Every structure is written in C-alpha cells, then in structure tokens.
C-alpha cells in the first residue's frame, strides 16, 4: 500500500464516504487511489467550489466535509473556502498535494507554501514530512476539525510521500475529557435567571455545532424566556416558538433589536457578539447582566465583559441552568412587539416583491428542504422571511459573507441528502462568482433548485451607496448580465424568467416539482432595499426602516 492508498484507507476509517475535489499534478497519486478506493469523489469545476461543496455537505449533515486539491493554484483556490469554514466553525479536512519533498523551497512548478498560506485561514494545518506521520496526522486532523469549536484543518502531502510506501497505523483511542460542571456557576446562573425581570436568550451558531438544539428547545419550553438568534443560528429555535423574535442585528427584526436593548439579563448561547449583531458595542444590551455560554474560552470577555461564563458542553449546561423566572409582563411586552413589528408583505403594483416571494416559497416547499443562500440582499431576505426548523436546513455564509457560496454549498448538500429538496437562493452578483458549478450539477444530474433574484445590481453595495455614499453607484450596475436562462440551458438546466406577481405561484410549482435541476430567474426592481437596517456605528434601537 502506498501513501496515497493509505490516505484513502484512513479516510474510510474516519467514516468518510464522500469527498469533493479537483485533480492536478501533485495530487495525482491520491486520485489514482481514489479511482477504485471505495470513497465517492465529486469533481467540482473549481477548487473553491469543492471547498464550498464540502462545507454544504458538512453543514447539512453535521459530518466532516472533505475537499482535495493539487499544489499551487489548486491549494490557493481552496483558501476562500477554508476561511469561510473558519469564520463559521465548520469541520472541514482539506487535503492538498505538494511538490516532492526534495523540490520544496526551489520554486518548483506549481509550488506554493501552502502551510504558510493556511495559517490565517485554518484551525490548524499539517505538512506531512515522513510516511510515519501520515496516519497520526490524518487522525489528528479529524479530531481537531470536530472537537471543541470545530473548524477547517489542512493536510499538505508531498507527492513522494503519496507514492512511497506507507507505514501501518492503528487508530488511537481518544479519551473523553469532559469535565464536571462548576456547581457554583450553575447556582449563580440560576439565581440570575430567576431574579431577572426581562431575560433574553441570544442564540448563536454554536448551538447547532454542539448538536444542542434539542436541549435548547427544552430550555425554552420550560423557562418560556423570549429569544432571538443570529444568522447562523436560524433553525435552532422553532420559527413559531411563542416568544421567538427572529434574527437580531444589522438586518434583524425590529422586535429582536428592541428587546436586546431593553433586556436586563442576556443569556448568550453559542454566540460571539459579532459586530453585525451588536451594532454599537458600547450600547448593546446596555442594561443587561450577561451569562455567556460558549465552548471557545477566547470568546469570553473578548468583546463584552460578562457576569458569568461557562465553556462547557451546551448539552450539559442548558439543562443544568433551567429555572423558570416570573416574567409575565415581559412576555406580554414581547408578544405585543411581535405583533406591532411583524413583517409586512403588502406591496403595490405588479413587480415582484422578493420578501413576499420568499415567504411564499417557504410556505410551499416540502418539509426538510435545505436552503443554501448566497451573499447579499437576497441572503438577508431569506433570513428574515423564510423559516426553517433545523440549523442543517439553513446554510448561509455568515461570518465571512462569501459571495459565490450558495450554488456549490447546495451541490454539497444535495449530494449529502439526495432525497431532500435543496434550493440555492442566489443573486445576480453572487451567481456569477461560482457559475462554473452548474457544470457539477450537470455532471452529476443533481436536482438542485436555483432561485435567482436578479436586480441587475450588486444590490447590497448599491443599497449602501444609496444610503451612505450619496447615491454614487460605483461599479454596482450589472445591466450587462448574461441571459441566465440561456446560460443554464447550456448546462442542460431548464428554467424560466418571471417578472410580475401573477407568475409566482405556478413558477414556484414548476421549480419545486421538477425532477432535475431548475432555474427560476426572478427579475426585481433595483430600488428594493433590505429593511430594517442598523446603520454603521449606530445602536441596535436606531434602525432605519425606509428612506424618503
């Protein structure tokens, strides 16, 4: 067994059944091993697409996503995907080929210092220097990717290690190192919760990563504490939970942002006080004590000094701090705010109103549909107006905000969950960033549905130019877009364009009922903006809701 065969063997030992990648010179031995090695490989049409497909696979299943690329440009093309996985704490193992050991440092063909490149965009990275290291490194990579706060890990393997003899390695039995809860902190937390008059749960993506959705829902059910969530936590709380107000932050719901500013106890669960959530940090939940529950100790007191913190497993902590406060007035106030500030879908004229379209799609789509959003205005409309009830069903580039994410992520999700409907919601700017992945959809005949919301603009940037740059629309006008339906048809993907409200219902049926992939291209006005908006530098209760 050579090193490359050993890698495939080790992947199988880690229960990997599916990988995404793109071959090239320095990784050819591994591709030879994959040819009949028993692990399915999906050829993406760009390494960035492979990384994002691996992310979609990981996020839709909770498993580790694996992507593979060659040295040099193959590895550099992975970098954006790795950064995306780092910011969203997604368990990814990336394997790159490297030039043979004796050529490293000679500026050989397709040589780049991948280990050096990886330092800022991975949780950890390895360069394999000897055959003996291969087994332990692969095992450690999977352990690091999944343990604590998950993240991407890169393994760079020189070609001579791939073709040389392997060294047998038995998987180590890793001990469970979970420590007992600190009962003083638990008691103190319960006291704060029981004494609070206006407690609020601020739920982040860490809940889904910790697989603690069930514990969170039980906590909410038993305490009836009102809640808000971050972009990445959408799906953790059932959308119709009585006191759940939706997303908080820059484009959060008005009720969420007002509740945050009014609360007297903020319970942050798997959240990190990101600037898109807090707005002006000094004024964020200004009157609140804070209980911060997060597995990453580096997040504690990083941006907000907290009253109590615990870095234990959320599955343990949430049941332990469950106590029902007496907060009827606060609950009544939250209920009233939810009604007063509910989303409105009345919209004049025939042109399509994207929020209403997305709401209609959410009401029509099958249960357990996976939504993979791209980045921009449509991403915020998805977050505001669609509803999903599992975090695995809302896949959105939250931390890095990577345009081009939606379609390849949908490819990965569809491969992972072939029996579920997968919808990529994209914009005309984002769609063009990884348009080559239509080739992957065609190659595998993946039934990915694409909802393309087209305002012939880089809409979110245009919105900011309108609001904050005196309407100087610098390089955001895309009236020269290609004909997207024709473009899709070149990849054997049928589709249609709709422009008025009366076309929506039947078009959504055709999208959802198509056996294979389908493109629904929706033309909307460039004047539509995302509201509400907390402007830069403002506190969360200073939301803009429209402009005259």
């Amino acid at each position, binding site marked *: 067994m050579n090193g490359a065969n050993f890698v495939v063997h080790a992947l199988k030992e880690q229960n990997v059944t599916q990988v995404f990648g793109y071959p090239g010179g320095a990784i050819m031995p591994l591709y030879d091993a994959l040819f009949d090695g028993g692990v399915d490989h999906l050829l993406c049409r760009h390494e960035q697409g492979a990384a994002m497909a691996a992310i979609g696979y990981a996020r839709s299943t909770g498993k580790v996503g694996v992507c593979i690329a060659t040295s040099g440009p193959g590895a550099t093309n992975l970098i954006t995907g790795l950064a995306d996985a780092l910011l969203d704490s997604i368990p990814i193992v990336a394997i790159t080929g490297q030039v043979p050991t004796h050529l490293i440092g000679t500026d050989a063909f397709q040589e780049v210092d991948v*280990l050096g490149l990886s*330092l800022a965009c991975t949780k950890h990275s390895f*360069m394999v220097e000897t055959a003996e290291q291969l087994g332990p490194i692969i095992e450690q990579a999977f352990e*690091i990717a999944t343990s604590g706060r998950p993240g991407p890990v890169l393994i760079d393997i020189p070609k001579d290690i791939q073709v040389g003899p392997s060294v047998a390695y038995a998987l180590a039995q890793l001990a469970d190192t979970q420590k007992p809860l600190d009962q003083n902190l638990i008691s103190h937390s319960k006291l704060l919760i029981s004494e609070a008059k206006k407690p609020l749960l601020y739920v982040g993506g860490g809940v889904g990563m910790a697989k603690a959705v069930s514990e969170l829902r039980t906590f909410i059910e038993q305490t009836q504490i009102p809640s808000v969530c971050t972009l990445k936590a959408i799906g953790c709380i059932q959308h119709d939970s009585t006191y759940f107000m939706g997303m908080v932050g820059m484009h959060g719901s008005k009720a969420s942002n007002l509740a945050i500013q009014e609360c007297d106890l903020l319970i942050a669960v798997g959240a990190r006080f990101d600037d898109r959530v807090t707005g002006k940090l000094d004024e964020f939940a200004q009157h609140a004590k804070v209980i911060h529950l997060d597995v990453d*100790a*580096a997040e504690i*007191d*990083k941006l907000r000094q907290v009253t109590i913190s615990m870095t234990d497993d959320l599955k343990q902590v949430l049941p332990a701090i469950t106590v029902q406060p007496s907060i009827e007035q606060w609950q009544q106030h939250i209920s009233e705010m939810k009604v007063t500030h509910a989303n409105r879908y009345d919209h004049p004229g025939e042109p399509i109103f994207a929020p209403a379209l997305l709401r209609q799609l959410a009401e029509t789509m099958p249960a357990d549909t996976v939504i993979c959003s791209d980045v921009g205005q449509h991403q915020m409309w998805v977050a505001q107006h669609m509803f999903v009830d599992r975090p695995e069903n809302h896949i959105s580039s939250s931390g890095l905000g990577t345009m081009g994410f939606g379609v390849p992520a949908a490819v990965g999700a569809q491969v992972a969950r072939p029996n579920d409907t997968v919808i990529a919601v994209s914009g005309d700017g984002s769609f063009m960033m990884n348009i080559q992945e239509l080739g992957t959809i065609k190659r595998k005949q993946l039934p990915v549905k694409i909802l393309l919301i087209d305002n012939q603009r880089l809409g979110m940037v245009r919105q900011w130019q309108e609001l904050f740059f005196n309407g100087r629309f610098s390089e955001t006008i895309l009236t020269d877009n290609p004909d997207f339906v024709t473009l899709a048809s070149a990849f054997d993907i049928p589709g249609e364009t709709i422009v008025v409200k009366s076309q929506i219902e039947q078009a959504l049926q055709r999208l959802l009922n198509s056996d294979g992939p389908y493109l629904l291209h929706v033309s909307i006005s460039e004047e539509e903006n995302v509201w509400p908006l907390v402007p830069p530098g403002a506190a969360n209760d200073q939301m803009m809701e429209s402009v005259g």
Partner: protein
Amino acid sequence: MNNTLTIEAKHSPEFLERLLRVCRHRGFSIVSINATIEQQLTHIELTVSSDREITLLTKQLDKVIGILTVTLLASSGNIKASA
C-alpha cells in the same frame, strides 16, 4: 503597555510563524523574543506591547494547537496550563 509571557510548545517547523501571526493579528507588537528548542519542545520568552488587554492574546494563544502552557510573568501569575 508591555507584558512578558513564557510559552512552551511542541516543536514544529512553523511554530514561530503561528505564534507571530497570532500576536500581530490580535494587535500585539513584539518588543523582544527569545526562543530555544530542547527535546522537541520550544520554549519562548516573549514581550509584547499593546493597548489591548493581554488576556485577548493569551486566550488566543491557548487555542494554538501544540502550545502546552502560556504563562504571564506579571502579578496576575499563571493564566493556564493546558494539556
């Protein structure tokens, strides 16, 4: 404000790069550094300067795979000894 740290880590060829990148990225400039490698362990004595709280750096260093201990040589004493 200057703070002096001692760091013990498993030796790896790129360890110093990892350390220096975290310091720079988190807003700490290097005032002085001394590194020795002994029996596959890297020992670092590091003085950094920043307006930021030193715990912002030490918590990030604690997360670096391969770092075994980070100790602040100041009145606040030992911050963490992780395995």
